[in-house]
């Protein structure tokens, strides 16, 4: 069975695409055959983050409409053997996506032997976002420690619990995971930022990881390399931990405690 995972958040700009790219890469690196689908019809971005924008020929809507088959549309990732990207269409509007069409694509991916399908949701709670979560078995809710993001995450959790197929058919509910991104332990320590514990307490969803705020994320997207591949980066390590926890491995939380810089570091600078 292919496991369908939606990466969602409600609010835009919190790190959904960055997370989709890194988690799908992480699962592929672990040997699972993985597909990552961009559901942001009209505003495709996943291809840029994955660094395959120049190889896009066909897209999700082409496959849904039968203008191309899945094999033609899937782009093989340049970093991982087992990873394939299905880009979103740029030209058509969101109404081009139908529930039947998405279901057909997911079924076909399962027939092709995929272990995981990651659905990168668009922002908002409109059709595109609902379509991305409709067939989910698990959901990664990406949240920034900031008021509007937390509130929007709660809204999207409500939609997961009412509009997903699992909810409508009364099956086991979608397994929810909370991921806090752009986290600054220093600001939390100073009482300027909600702690990951606060966010978890408010949303009441099990935590799968905390990704620290870092300049590396921009560096990664500049190059079209998913952040998980970066060398010597806290963000990459944090994403690897998230993938491990997703696979039920025990990993303690890292990068959540603030260490005051020592006297040497303060004198001589450093990163």
């Amino acid at each position: 069975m292919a496991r369908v995972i939606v990466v969602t958040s409600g609010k835009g700009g919190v790190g959904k695409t960055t997370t989709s790219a890194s988690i799908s890469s992480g699962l592929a690196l672990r040997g699972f055959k993985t597909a990552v689908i961009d559901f942001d019809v009209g505003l495709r971005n996943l291809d840029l983050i994955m660094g395959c924008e120049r190889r896009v020929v066909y897209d999700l809507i082409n496959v849904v409409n039968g203008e191309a088959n899945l094999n033609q549309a899937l782009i093989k990732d340049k970093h991982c053997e087992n990873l394939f990207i299905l880009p979103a269409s740029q030209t058509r509007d969101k109404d081009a996506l139908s529930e039947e069409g998405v279901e057909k694509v997911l079924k076909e991916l399962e027939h092709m032997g995929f272990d995981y399908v990651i659905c990168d949701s668009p922002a908002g709670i409109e059709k595109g976002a609902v379509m991305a979560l409709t067939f989910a078995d698990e959901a990664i809710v990406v949240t920034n420690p900031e008021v509007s993001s937390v509130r929007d995450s709660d809204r999207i959790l409500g939609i997961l619990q009412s509009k997903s197929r699992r909810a409508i058919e009364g099956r086991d509910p979608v397994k929810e995971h909370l991921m806090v991104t752009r986290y600054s332990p220093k600001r939390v320590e100073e009482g300027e930022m909600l702690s990951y514990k606060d966010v978890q307490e408010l949303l009441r969803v099990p935590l799968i990881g905390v990704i620290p705020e870092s300049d590396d994320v921009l560096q990664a997207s500049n190059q079209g390399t998913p952040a998980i591949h970066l060398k010597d980066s806290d963000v990459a390590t944090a994403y690897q931990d998230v993938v491990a926890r997703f696979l039920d491995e025990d990993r303690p939380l890292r990068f959540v405690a603030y260490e005051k810089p020592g006297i040497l570091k303060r004198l001589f600078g450093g990163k």
Partner: protein
Amino acid sequence: MSLLSYFFGSKPKTASVAKERLSLIIAHERTTNRAPDFLPALQRELIEVISKYVNVGVDDIKVQLEKQDNCEILEVNITLPEQPTR
């Protein structure tokens, strides 16, 4: 206190303000946004039935659905008018 914090430069902690505001708004939105569609109809019909026997108004019946862990609690609160002593 304010004088002390003035001298020692401690700032008000905005994170705790954020948490308090969020816990209020989220609790409120959970009861309104996540209520199933049938609640208003249920409330209307309950009023119809009960008003056959007791004199109750629209505001005397409150229907709420709450979720605690894995179980949902349907709370129906009916305020009966004071019985006239016979």
